[in-house]
């Protein structure tokens, strides 16, 4: 079956190409989810990965500085200082006590540089399915 053989070779080339592309895309965009307590225990290569961390915005910690916004995320007593350097204004839901999800990289001093921040309002209304519990500032 000559045609069949050619088809199999062609398919093999296509699939191999796609696998290479998929792997490249994966390494470029993979993002790890961590809790704040996990972040403290990371070491080696894991420290330099792109990650997402969630927590509550510590009351009174939001500071507007030139070109960035600093705040502290806390979760079960653990704290992590965050600097937001993204270009989009933070969502209106981002305020003291709100649940926030930050995405970015950890600096060697334990500071988190976020380029994306999502915030979920601590609303009196229950977050039901279909309600916008999170407002995304980033293009993700």
């Amino acid at each position, binding site marked *: 079956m000559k045609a069949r053989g050619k088809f199999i070779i062609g398919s093999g080339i296509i699939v191999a190409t796609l696998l290479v592309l998929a792997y490249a895309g994966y390494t470029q965009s993979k993002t790890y989810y961590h809790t704040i307590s996990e972040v403290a225990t990371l070491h080696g290569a894991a420290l330099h990965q792109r990650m997402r961390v969630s927590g509550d915005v510590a009351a009174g910690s939001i500071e507007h500085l030139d070109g960035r916004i600093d705040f502290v995320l806390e979760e079960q007593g653990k704290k992590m200082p965050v600097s937001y350097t993204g270009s989009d204004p933070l969502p209106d839901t981002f305020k003291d006590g709100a649940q926030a999800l930050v995405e970015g990289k950890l600096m060697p001093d334990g500071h988190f540089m976020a380029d994306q921040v999502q915030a979920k309002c601590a609303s009196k209304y229950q977050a039901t399915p279909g309600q916008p519990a999170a407002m995304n500032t980033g*293009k993700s």
Partner: protein
Amino acid sequence: MDVFGSFALLLAFIAAVYAFSAGIAGIITRRPLLTKSARNAGMAVFGLITLAVASLEYFFFTDNFSLAYVAEHSNRALPAFYKFAALWAGQEGSLLWWSWLLSTYAFFALFLNRKKHPELMPYVGVILAGVQIFFLTLNNFVASPFHVLGGVGAGGAMHVATLSDGNGLNPLLQYPEMVIHPPMLYSGYTGFTVPFAFALAALLGRYPGEKWIHITRRWTMVAWGFQTVGILLGMHWAYAVLGWGGYWAWDPVENASLLPWITGTAFLHSVMMQEKRGMMKVWNVWLVFVTFMLCILGTMLTRSGVVSSVHAFAESSIGGWFVWFLGIILAVCLVAWYKNRDYLRSDNQLDSIVSRESSFLFNNLVLLAACFAVLWGTLFPVFSEWFTGSKISVGPPFFNKVNIPIALFLLLLTGIGPLLAWRKTSFDALKRNFAWPLAGGIAAAVVALFFGFVGFYPFMCLMLCVFVALTIQAEFYRGARVISQRDGTNLLTAAGELTMRNTRRYGGYVVHFGMVLIFIGICGTAFKQDIQKQMAPGDTLTIGPYTLVCQNFDETQNDNYTSQRATLEVFRDGKSEMMLYPSRRFFLASQVTETMVAVESSPLRDLYVVYAGRNPDTNQPVIHAYINPLVKWIWFGGIVVVLGTGLAMLPNRRAAIVLRPVAEQAWGEGVSPEAGAAVAAPIRRTDGHD
């Protein structure tokens, strides 16, 4: 009244269980009366769910806030249009809506075929009822939309609480597209149940030949058409409402809607292999199975919060039910296929690599690869947590890297596939068919290069788009010229006549042309620009050919929301062109803010302006402006795709009546064997390769 709705739902559940069990009993005992009563029960489900839906709508329109679902998703000040749409704003209502659409399809599938295919229909009825039982179980016992607020008071008496006003509809859904988008998408998701039921029924009943494909062709196209419209409306909604300047973010919920669309597209193409050449029988059956399973998976991803998404649905317990249901479907499909696999043996083999068959095989291969990549990327956080313990997500670069080459390859196949002959194509035929379109494509790309159309993918995309458009045009021209010479009509009339004589083929070309337009629109993304600036009155911002001058800021209020608005004057070449009013609305009932984007759309580019918020230090508004080239082509292409899909569903016009024996009829399409030994059929072009 709430009792009325939940009672109707419960009866629907009982009817579905009866249709399922009596249907099986009817198949085993071969008693026609039992089969008939099972079918009638299956059709009754539709009436009962309709009553439940009507009852829930009645609560919305009468502002009955004693019902938890109404209180959560509506309020008094909500416009009537949105009160209607609030039905599918949340989990419980969406699932009810799913059930209703499914029961509508099931009703028509059973009703229209009530006198046909007596060997096949009992199986179809049982499978449809089986799917309905699952959703009605959710509607009745897991996520009932008819829960009342309040609880059991002293002495066991029910005590009903009523709120004075509801929480209001999610403002993101208060947009016209959002009223149409969910029903469209759900009609797509549910619609694939019909071809699934027929395919599984044909396999279980070992129903001869390709009949199930002929019977379900239009059903599949209806489902596919709805899915296409649903996806495009969703994209348009994301573009117009979410305010991030794009229309597709590879968000899990978006991906979920794309998956069955991809496999459905693969199926619509690969059935032709079975009809024409008796190949790919196993593949087709599995494509339908997988498409249906992906529809269920899509519903699950949308509704269960298994994967977090910007659609941000709360986590709910409903995911487990879907996993079980998917497991059952997979098991049934595997067993049905394994026991009847000899029935699916292929009649032919691939003859040549340069043939229509091989173009379909490659089409299916890359579509499935795309589907797999999207599925893998979407579920990656779940898989990685299972296998490595850490939750890892992949972003748009992953999806784009894999899918852009696939999409371009598909575009290439769209151009060459339809012109390749079945079995084997000669080199001369290739040259004759492709020389001019290819030259045209290259010429267009070279011209575009001079206009700054750089980048490998956009360049390839433009070249292929022109190439495909030219091959389609050539196909219409070739056929129309023959008709126009014979009938003495002009080319345009002849092209119309040509289309009506073979709607499936030429409707298909129209769909392809629509896809070309969509590709051109997507290609424009490569040339997107954006700029963000804090603006005080009098400040200017320049983007592309436009200069935006801030005139004013104001705040307004009505019953439903307060609104902050910027007034921007747009100048182009020093001339004032228009005013834009980007704004942000704060909805009072739900305490949520929403962006109202101001878009000035033209075929060449959209000027897309967002009121992004206020800088808390200076209290000045931040304006984010985008230039999105060619976006309009996507929406226009979508309309062309829908028109083409509609065309392909029309029956062929009978140009001349000849008598020919049924056995020679290439298509079972619209011709029932009961009509006799000879049927009227249109003259078909012998060189046609539909």
